[in-house]
């Protein structure tokens, strides 16, 4: 795969109930990204948006965002998955050689829709949906139990992930205020209310309001726009089967496949050695460990042994990850932006030292059914 450069990005601050209109927020994100890159509207050749009809409460959710999203008389499309998948489509459009500058934006306002109901609409309507026993809440419980039971992982290890991410989020000014907590302890996490046993409320990435935008350009074009682009050198994505009863929830097959494809594309032989920082879309604390294991950073069941603090061996989610704020459809883009920030040295306050290669992931579906992984490299 040829390199594609990230030449600009912008994310609005995450709020649980933002004092923003939807269009205003989209405009702020997109305009901000274009301004950051020092470009104009006419430089945009393609726009890929990421919204979801059931999150926005309207069919054709990209219909009215043409003006504010920068796609006026521009080659436009919409991906209805996670934001990271929209970046994939933007990447494909750039790689095809048809486009010089792709704007990818995505996000939604979780304060405006019944999140769990919208997730319930994902389930099999002929079998599971009428009774709603399978939903995003219960599936999280099943996943964590399967992981703990199979490998004998202690609940403390999982709570530690949430502690780390919430402490990291406190250093990230754009993270969700409710998730920022510099003084949180494992005890606080375990004593918070039960979400779906064994998952507790504070292990969950809380849905919130937010939009993020990203600019992609082919190699030569990227170097014209900025001296310091971040390169996407590898991508992999994969989808697991649907029924929870068919899957081994203690691991993540789709992340494994995505990792294989991404590392192969980027020419990474030994991810454990080569990757300096990881930004995962962990919808729940245990998913961070499952993902790290699926990618081979630790043996199965030993994910908690990774030194994932900011100054650790392999820092994971120095920005606070999805636990630091999870705006549906934007989280994946934000992960890529945060990984890019680490590579350019812009992660003020939570910068990891000496980052050369980073990974970022996005996911969708119950128990992370579909995963996508990016490998990013800095320009120096």
């Amino acid at each position: 795969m040829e390199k594609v450069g990230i030449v600009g990005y912008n994310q609005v601050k995450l709020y649980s109930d933002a004092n923003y209109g939807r269009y205003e927020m989209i405009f702020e994100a997109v305009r901000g990204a274009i301004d950051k890159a020092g470009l104009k509207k006419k430089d945009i050749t393609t726009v890929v948006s990421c919204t979801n009809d059931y999150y926005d409460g309207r069919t054709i959710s990209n219909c009215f965002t043409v003006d504010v999203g920068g796609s006026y008389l521009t080659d436009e499309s919409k991906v209805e998955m996670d934001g990271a998948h929209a970046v994939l489509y933007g990447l494909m459009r750039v790689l095809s050689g048809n486009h010089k500058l792709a704007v990818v934006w995505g996000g939604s306002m979780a304060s405006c829709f019944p999140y769990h109901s919208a997730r319930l609409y994902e389930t099999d309507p002929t079998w599971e949906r009428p009774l709603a026993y399978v939903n995003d809440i219960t599936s999280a419980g099943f996943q964590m139990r399967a992981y703990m039971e199979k490998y004998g992982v202690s609940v403390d290890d999982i709570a530690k992930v949430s502690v780390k991410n919430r402490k990291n989020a406190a250093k990230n000014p754009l993270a969700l205020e409710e998730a920022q907590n510099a003084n949180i302890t494992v005890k606080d996490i375990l004593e918070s209310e039960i979400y779906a046993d064994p998952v507790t409320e504070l292990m969950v990435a809380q849905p919130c309001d937010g939009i993020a935008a990203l600019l992609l350009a082919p190699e030569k074009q990227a170097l014209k726009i900025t001296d310091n682009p971040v390169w996407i050198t590898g991508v992999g994505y994969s989808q697991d089967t649907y029924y929870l009863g068919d899957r081994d929830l203690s691991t993540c097959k789709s992340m494994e496949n995505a990792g294989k494809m991404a590392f192969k594309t980027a020419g990474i032989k030994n991810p454990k050695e080569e990757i300096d920082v990881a930004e995962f879309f962990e919808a729940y604390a245990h998913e961070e460990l499952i993902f790290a294991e699926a990618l081979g950073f630790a043996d199965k069941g030993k994910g908690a042994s990774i030194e994932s603090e900011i100054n650790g061996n392999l820092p994971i989610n120095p920005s606070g990850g999805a636990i630091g704020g999870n705006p549906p459809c934007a989280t994946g883009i934000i992960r890529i932006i945060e990984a890019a920030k680490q590579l350019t040295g812009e992660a003020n306050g939570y910068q990891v030292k000496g980052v050369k290669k980073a990974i970022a992931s996005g996911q969708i579906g119950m128990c992370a059914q579909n995963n996508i992984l990016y490998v990013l490299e800095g320009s120096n």
Partner: protein
Amino acid sequence: MSKRTQRKSLDYVKKDYVKTRTMPGNWYLSSYTYKFNLTHMQPFLKKLKEKKLVGLKCPGCNRVFFPPRLVCGQCLIKPNQWVDLRETGEVASFTIAYLKDPGTGKVQEKPMVLIRQDGADTVYMVELNPEVDYKDTYIGMPVKVHWSEDLKGSLADIEYYDLVEDNARDLDLHKE
């Protein structure tokens, strides 16, 4: 919409399929909210109360938006110049809706129009004076704002649009 209109479809070659049972599902839009920023609308609404029309002009492309618009898509900037507009406009497009009166069951024809205010570069949906016969509606028909008696500083201050008597009307051979 469809329940109130008369239906008649054409026959076609049909094939029947095995009928299986269904499972119910709902999409409660009433559990959703829609957030909008209407700050840019306020000066416009204030002027309406004074029986004045203003549009928002984009400094990039000089298009005038009536009603005002948050962002100009062409330039991707927020327009910020207010311009005064006249009360007249013209029918840019129209269609006729056929609605069954729920009480009598009689079909009523109603013209639906898009009006472009003179001096503006956008069209918007409004009502015509109910006395205008649907057969008289045509593209390019000149119209004028009919103000509501009770001005509240809302869009309803423009109650409907009156037809402006136009001598050239009968010369338009191609009116629909």
